[in-house]
């Protein structure tokens, strides 16, 4: 997957969680939870959805790497390069 495709996947998963999520003003380098109405359970929903879609196990200590949209893409890019 390309970086752009990975970004779209993340936004699609967030949109499934909150259909009212507004990405128009989203700063890709600022924490997602500061900008969107997401809490810790929503964050775990994102992790679970990635697990279901790509059989990807994300260790808890690596959760901080999913904080921003850019860091998500950075973290997922090598894991999804063959998808």
């Amino acid at each position: 997957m390309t970086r752009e495709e990975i970004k779209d996947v993340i936004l699609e998963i967030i949109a499934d969680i909150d259909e009212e999520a507004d990405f128009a003003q989203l700063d890709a380098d600022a924490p997602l939870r500061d900008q969107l109405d997401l809490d810790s359970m929503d964050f775990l929903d994102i992790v679970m959805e990635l697990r279901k879609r790509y059989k990807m196990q994300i260790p808890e200590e690596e959760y901080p790497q999913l904080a921003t949209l850019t860091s998500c893409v950075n973290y997922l890019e090598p894991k999804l390069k063959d998808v």
Partner: protein
Amino acid sequence: MMNQHTEHQRIVITGVGLTAPGAANLTDFRANLLAGKSGISTIDLRYMGVHPAGLCTFAETRYRKKRENSRGTRAGCIGVYCANEALVDAGVDFSEYDRAATGVYIGLTEHGTVETENEVYNVGQYANDVNYWTHHHNPRTVLNNPAGEITMNLGITGPHYAIGAACAAGNAALIQGVQMLRLGEVDLALCGGISECVGSFGIFASFRAQGALAEHEDPTKASRPFDLDRNGIVISEGGCVFTLERLDRALARGAKIYGEITGYGMNSDARDFVLPYGPRQRQCMEMALKRADLRPADVTILNAHATGTKQGDIEECNAIRETFAGCENTWINNTKSSIGHAMGAAGVLELAGNLPSFADNMVHPTINLDNLDPECALPGLVANIPQQLPQVDAILNNSFGMLGINSVVIVERFVAN
């Protein structure tokens, strides 16, 4: 008669919010009951196939976003709708009541069965790898879930918890509310019952294994308590929440008063896991009558618990026949014939369906009585068409459950001292 309690101790019902099979408010619910209209349709359940069931259609996103409904449970969704509808109906906006002095008491027959079955099925799709088990499982399945979802939605910071009392739970939650108001623990009580159990194949399968699951080619005819051709329970979902207040506060704010809870009783059979026991049911009704300071003949309407099982119906009829012998002005009906058995919501939904009788003086009928079982032929049984009365003064509501738990609530027409 002069009420024994002061206005500070008299507890009145001032708001009703409900969703039942075929109706999402009290007006429509009452109209269906008086018209003898069944709310039963069918459900196609995993592993079970198609069976008669009572399903609810209501404005699920009127008071809560779709997102919260997805995160929570069906029971929570029903509860949030009913609680909000009750508050709107009661005209309570928390300008006169403190959210910290408001209690939420919700009766449940069971909770978590649906969510657990769904998750077991879900991990089955992933070779039973429990890494795919949802993190939502515990908050969804704790027993206080439906009551807790109500408090989160409404910002209520007083106590909330579930009353687990099998199918007597709705009445039990009402009784809890009355007691907490009389103790001064809260000033406003949101009390009721909820059931989401149509989502559980296990509950259907268990009733079927017990020989107690209703079957009929026409689902609207499947729920037929007291009828010789009855063959079991129709499982329904639903919910009903009442606002209960002390009379002095209700009068001070000019609240509409549906009725006054004057009597209640609860006891246990101490005998059997599933079989009901008439003599204990009779004691429970007598306990409630004594507390209300009423004679059996003072009861205008008795809403029977009867679910459409042969033994259960006969056992309750025997208890009623003995307690109400010679009571020519006591009329008996059964709401489950129209809406099926809403489990934890049954007691409160059935009471709600009868509450408007204080205003319209009608007794809604027991429907699907085509071939009355002689053992259920109670004098005063209102069959298939409503009964018009000069006045309705008292409603006695029976609600019994597995493990031998019995509950009776008496509501009287409100009369100021």
